């Protein structure tokens, strides 16, 4: 079972204060760690996490780089958007009024034939992703 895990959920894997659905996000992380499921990311995740850490949270360059290294250690080398995926992303973005960033996540998940797990309200409203709560319930993942 493979899942595509979007940036907002990836951050919840490590950050708790002020976050919703932390237990559910961590249940997905724990299942990935145990090998029960395979959580994948696309390369956009590195740019989005990096941008949040650098510009919103104002982490040091060293900490940002270390965090991205750890993300790759945890999830493996990110998937790269293929040309067909980019075309589908453009179509999804246009259809649903999403940014290309949002649409790229959805297009990648559709191309892979896997669920996209996201806490993003726009992706969820467009029914292009499922929430961590929905994922943990569907897969009956144990929460701590």
């Amino acid at each position, binding site marked *: 079972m493979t899942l595509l895990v979007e940036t907002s959920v990836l*951050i919840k894997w*490590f950050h708790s*204060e*002020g976050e*919703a659905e932390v237990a559910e996000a961590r249940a997905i992380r724990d299942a990935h*760690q145990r090998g029960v499921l395979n959580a994948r990311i696309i390369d956009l995740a590195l740019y989005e996490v990096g941008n949040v850490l650098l510009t919103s949270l104002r982490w040091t360059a060293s*900490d940002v780089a270390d965090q991205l290294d*750890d993300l790759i*250690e945890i999830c493996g080398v990110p998937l790269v958007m293929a040309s067909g995926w980019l075309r589908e992303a453009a179509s999804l973005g246009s259809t649903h009024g999403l940014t290309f960033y949002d649409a790229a996540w959805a297009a990648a998940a559709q191309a892979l034939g896997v669920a996209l797990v*996201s806490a993003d309200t726009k992706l969820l409203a467009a029914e292009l992703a499922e929430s961590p709560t929905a994922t943990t319930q569907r897969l009956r993942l144990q929460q701590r």
Partner: protein
Amino acid sequence: MSKVMVSLPDELLHRIDEAARQRSVSRSALIAAAARRELARRDPDAVAAAIARSEKRFQAAGGFEAAVLVRGDRDASPR
């Protein structure tokens, strides 16, 4: 392509053959796919260490909702 002889429990072999039949692939292809998946698994100790380091880094990050920050980042990107 090398041919190898492996020993498997009868019950496991039965399940492999049943799964291969359902997926319309050969027994060898199914076993090869399973082996590739296993080999692709992350080193559990390395993953656990990376998670621990990540949690430690985020401890001092303060309170926020990740989805809000990511949304703000996407919407604020130059158009």
